[in-house]
């Protein structure tokens, strides 16, 4: 069916295999999430609201908490860097690598590193940067983009992966998931041991102690900071929580919301370089904070999106994401959170992403599952309003103009006349009318019999 919206075109054109895989994985995760939250807690909804409030408080006082965290990190021996733009962040990381004559980096999964396109940047400078999360590793081999925050290769099946491995010299074609995993283990183990620098993201940073919490199921974030001497933590400025005890609340919610686990397999806390008598691990700890538009978001009507803890639950439940898959959103963060965040990031241009907030039936399922209770539908609506005021073409495409309709609705006499004459609709071949919105409807849907004004008539007759 003809469409003016790119995400809708993705939903129409997606390979049936991709669609099936995205749908079944998302659905399974939603079901597991629900089960683990409702069996785990007596009032999970109250916890979401509490977690939302703490995060909202944190971002509304971000200057104080960031200052506190930085002081603590520096007192513990970490070197703290700030980057306004992706370019700044890349340069900072390059500078760190050059300062120790490093040529190889092993990377744990980090969405911020995707945001700044770190791999491509380092490659351009002749440095090796290897993804260690299995999914991200496969994405890197394929020169592809992750299509989900938590499960980057939700759009790929084992046959595609086996072909990729074969192409890259990782053994003969074999699509057994266990074999694929073992081959990656062997290959990446060497990379861990060779790399001079390990880069990770951060799931949370406690201002109170400067403690960074990083979670992975595979153990890659742990390996990335065990065999080398330099650890770089790359994170957005909004990743803070006020107190260590808050980590308990968020870790409980994160694992359950992301994968339905009670706790992620490796949940690690670090606040300093390795201890003096520990043989393994980083002597240097660098923490790089990225802004990329976040401080501007903080000052405006979209600030609550900065609560996000990147669990992916809103993607998993979103019916539009399930139909269209993550690549439809054309940016690092897909799904409802991406539809709000992508247009706002400094490195993206608003007009290019102005259509994303339209990709929603506003059903509100995203808000219902959000562990920090972000009012996602409200934020999508705010974008739509902004786009309309700014005459954003990509947002407007396909949406019928409603000015005349508003006139009709604010003039009751006109409204009633239309109700009376609208009966003609029942006798007109409306599906043949060359009006795009009508065609878009009637291509796959009928309209019921028009019964305009019948109720008013019935009500009056009854009264008399």
């Amino acid at each position: 069916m003809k469409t003016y919206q790119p995400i809708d075109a993705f939903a129409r054109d997606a390979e049936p295999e991709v669609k099936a895989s995205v749908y079944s994985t998302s659905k399974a995760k939603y079901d597991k999430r629900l089960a683990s939250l409702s069996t785990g807690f007596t009032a999970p909804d109250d916890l979401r609201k509490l977690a939302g409030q703490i995060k909202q408080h944190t971002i509304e006082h971000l200057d104080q908490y960031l200052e506190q965290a930085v002081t603590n990190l520096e007192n513990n021996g970490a070197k703290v860097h700030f980057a306004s733009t992706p370019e700044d962040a890349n340069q900072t990381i390059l500078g760190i690598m050059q300062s120790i004559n490093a040529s190889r980096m092993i990377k744990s999964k980090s969405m911020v590193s995707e945001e700044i396109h770190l791999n491509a940047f380092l490659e351009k400078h002749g440095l090796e940067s290897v993804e260690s999360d299995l999914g991200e590793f496969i994405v890197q081999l394929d020169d592809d983009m992750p299509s989900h925050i938590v499960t980057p290769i939700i759009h790929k099946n084992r046959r595609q992966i086996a072909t990729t491995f074969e192409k890259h010299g990782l053994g003969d074609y074999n699509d057994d998931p266990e074999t694929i995993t073992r081959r990656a283990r062997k290959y990446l183990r060497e990379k861990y041991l060779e790399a001079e620098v390990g880069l990770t993201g951060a799931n949370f940073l406690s201002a109170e102690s400067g403690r960074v919490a990083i979670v992975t199921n595979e153990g890659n974030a742990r390996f990335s900071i065990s065999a080398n001497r330099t650890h770089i933590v790359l994170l957005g400025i909004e990743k803070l929580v006020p107190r260590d005890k808050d980590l308990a609340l968020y870790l409980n919610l994160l694992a359950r919301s992301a994968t339905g686990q009670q706790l992620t397999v490796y949940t690690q806390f670090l606040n300093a370089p390795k201890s003096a008598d520990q043989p393994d691990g980083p002597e240097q700890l660098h923490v790089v904070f990225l802004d990329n538009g976040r401080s501007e978001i903080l000052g405006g009507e979209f600030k609550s999106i900065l609560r996000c803890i990147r669990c992916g639950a809103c993607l998993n439940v979103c019916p539009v994401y399930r139909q269209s898959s993550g690549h439809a959103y054309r940016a690092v963060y897909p799904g409802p959170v991406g539809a709000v965040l992508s247009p706002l990031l400094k490195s993206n241009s608003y007009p290019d992403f102005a259509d994303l907030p339209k990709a929603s039936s506003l059903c509100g399922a995203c808000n219902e599952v959000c562990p920090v209770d972000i009012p996602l539908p409200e934020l999508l609506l705010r974008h739509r309003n902004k786009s309309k005021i700014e005459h954003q073409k990509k947002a407007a495409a396909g949406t019928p103009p409603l000015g005349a309709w508003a006139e009709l609705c604010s003039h009751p006499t006109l409204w009633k006349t239309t109700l009376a004459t609208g009966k003609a609709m029942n006798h007109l071949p409306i599906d043949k009318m060359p009006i795009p919105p009508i065609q878009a409807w009637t291509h796959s849907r009928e309209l019921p019999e028009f019964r305009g004004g019948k109720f008013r008539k019935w009500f009056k007759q009854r009264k008399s």
Partner: protein
Amino acid sequence: MNAPKPKPSKEVDLMITCLCDTFYDQVAASTVKVLEHVGCTVQVPEAQTCCGQPAFNAGDWKAARKVIQHTLKAFSSERTVVIPSGSCNHMVQHGYPLAFEESDDLEDVISFAKRCWELADYLVNGLGVKKWPGKFDGKISLHRSCHTRGSDSYASAVQLLSSIEGLELLEFDESEQCCGFGGTFSVAYPNTSTSMGKLKIEKLTAVKPNYIGATDMACMLHMGGIASKEETPFKVMHIAQILDQALQTKEAIA
């Protein structure tokens, strides 16, 4: 955001909603009969049109404000307003304050919202109706119309329907998922919207209900529209129609 709503009165204005005014007159009629059964005096303000949601959701807040202002005028009587739609009520409760966030009229729309009630929520939490009389023979898959999220409407509808003798509410898969309507979304994203609707119908009908129930005419319009096109019609009933039908039985009359 708002303080709890004051208890409503039984003197009510019915918000017909534009969809009842154009397609679903029977839902509005059933709503009147249901309200009268619990002792309400129902009036239908003549000047009402639409709550303004289509424009609001499409992003045209200027157009929406115009319609909202008209709606406030049409319902200026200070009576309780009952709406047989979770969606229009959601618009009044959440959309109105957003659309008027920076306006001097904000107080007015908030105080209007406090007078407005979705039908099932009104019956159960507003009036304290715990059990519905009469009988209804049949199994129903009750679609959880999305705009009842975050409100007491869906739970109220479940409470009322499951109290009716003979009525069985079925459990079905993916009950949290949307029917795909979404106002102008349905025509701006026709492929996504239709696929969502088909999937919803598949899940609702998989458990072999006699009827599909809904708290919103918009969901009925969308699912019904797909079903007619596919020539696999099924019976969709609004909760007001179900409650009304139960009242028509001799058990209720006796």
